[in-house]
């Protein structure tokens, strides 16, 4: 913060920074209240010291115990979900590449049978990475594709099956029911939920992301977030609310359209970027 003393103006500026980073009104107010409390309790006078406790509080929000779904199966299944255009298919390409580089045998299932050329798009990613893609005709039942993917994965002794799904807005009941059906097929075949259900979230998204996460979690057991498009100027601050309110961990970040543009989420880096004045994260 650029203020020289801790006054009303100081807190207003803090609010602007947080809201401007898409942290959202509720979470911003909560953070500001916490900071005010600590300033009182710890008798802090120097704005410089506030920057420290601010980072601490925000990091605290991102750090929590999440129950890891460690099931000792030879086949791991990841289901990728999210709203339209968030970066699901691209993230699958990047993830597949990662697993493959760790010497895992990977298979993809093209269960977005709706979007024009979605199957072709995934196939191109499969070819790039050098992994097979299980696919049906456009317009066919996505749950059937996932089922076939599971069978093929077992028969071929695959280590990791990743299932693409069509983008869908969380307020569309029939599409969410369809996702629930896909999720149940995996559940039934494995005898437990998918090892990972990753909700792909575009970093430019505003406060709507909270509803996305809530409603997707109602139809499939979302286990974490992939935060994409962090190579732009959006800060992706809404994930603070997802972590704080829903205890959803951020697992990966997308930083480009290339095959290697997927990174582990590092909360310290994320928080530094959140408060950096630079509008361009890639220049850091």
């Amino acid at each position: 913060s650029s203020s020289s003393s801790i006054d009303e103006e100081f807190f207003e500026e803090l609010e602007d920074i947080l809201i401007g980073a898409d942290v959202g009104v509720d979470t911003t107010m909560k953070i500001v209240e916490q900071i005010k409390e600590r300033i009182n309790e710890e008798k802090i006078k120097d704005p410089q010291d506030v920057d420290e406790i601010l980072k601490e509080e925000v990091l605290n929000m991102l750090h929590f115990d999440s129950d890891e779904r460690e099931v000792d199966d030879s086949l791991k299944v990841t289901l990728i979900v999210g709203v339209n255009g968030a970066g699901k298919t691209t993230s699958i390409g990047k993830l597949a590449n990662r697993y493959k580089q760790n010497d895992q045998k990977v298979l993809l299932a093209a269960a977005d049978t709706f979007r024009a050329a979605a199957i072709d798009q995934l196939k191109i990613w499969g070819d790039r990475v050098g992994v097979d893609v299980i696919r049906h005709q456009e317009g066919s039942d996505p749950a059937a594709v996932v089922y076939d993917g599971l069978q093929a994965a077992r028969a071929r002794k695959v280590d990791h099956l990743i299932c693409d799904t069509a983008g869908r807005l969380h307020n569309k009941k029939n599409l969410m029911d369809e996702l629930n059906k896909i999720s149940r097929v995996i559940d039934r075949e494995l005898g437990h939920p998918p090892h990972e259900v990753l909700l792909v979230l575009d970093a430019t998204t505003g406060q709507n992301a909270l509803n996305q996460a809530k409603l997707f979690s109602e139809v499939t057991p979302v286990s974490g977030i992939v935060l994409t498009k962090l190579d732009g100027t959006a800060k992706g601050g809404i994930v603070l609310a997802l972590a704080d309110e829903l205890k959803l961990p951020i697992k990966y970040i997308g930083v480009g359209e290339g095959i290697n543009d997927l990174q582990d989420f590092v909360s310290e880096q994320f928080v530094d970027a959140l408060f950096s004045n630079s509008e361009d994260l890639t220049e850091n």
Partner: protein
Amino acid sequence: MMLSRLSEKLQNTLGKLKGKGKVNEKDVKEAMREVRLALLEADVNYKVVKEFVNKVKERAIGEEVLESLTPGQQVIKIVRDELTELMGGEATELNFSDKPPTVIMLAGLQGTGKTTAAAKLANKFKKDNKHPLLVACDTQRPAAIKQLHVLGDQIEVPVFSMGDKQHPADIAKGAIEHAKKNQRDVVIVDTAGRLHVDEDLMTELKQVEEKISPHEILLVVDAMTGQDAVNVADRFNEDLALSGIIMTKLDGDTRGGAALSVKKVTGKPIKFIGTGEKVEELEVFHPDRLSSRILGM
């Protein structure tokens, strides 16, 4: 309805003023504090909110308003006027050239809905008895050309493509020549998604613009976008001669604040809104109607 949450909050806050026979400066300030929060909760950019609230406050605290017989009503009217202004007044039409083909180019961030919007526009023009041509200038995204072909087939509109090895400017130029020879009167150019901070790709887009001088350059913006919408719109507007905006994915439960922000920073009107994945789901945008509905007037 778009912005229904905002609508509810504003009507609540302003409703309290309406009932009062006398309104003082403190009442206005109190109401404006709540208006500010409502707008921020709707994802309206915080700088835009600050300016908006200050403007309304200044006008409302003026003598004539508070001394009038219906001060509450007056304040609400000021909010409505300023909201309409923020969203761009009346609906704005597309510019069709007297010398066909009319050339329309789409641009925007990755995944906002450009390719879908291209097909939706083509579908609309076809229904209006025009003869559109879709042009595949996205040489980046895997299967982007195929996607446009699939959509073109669906609506029975021809698609011009030259693969992904040519420069988009040359593809676009080729398409216009093709349109002239084949009596296509509207050319719709789909482009690859790109970040506003990606110098190389923004340059590419400028090259397309220079080569084909489009009659319309529409920025496609995802309605779910939060605070960053203004940075994006501002930058695209700087680099290209934008003529308007298409706001997509308004069929979600989005707060839609981006719609209130982008007009402000670019000065360019929202011309269409996307309300679904299907090719028919495109509507003309009427800001004046929306602001009245938001305030329940």
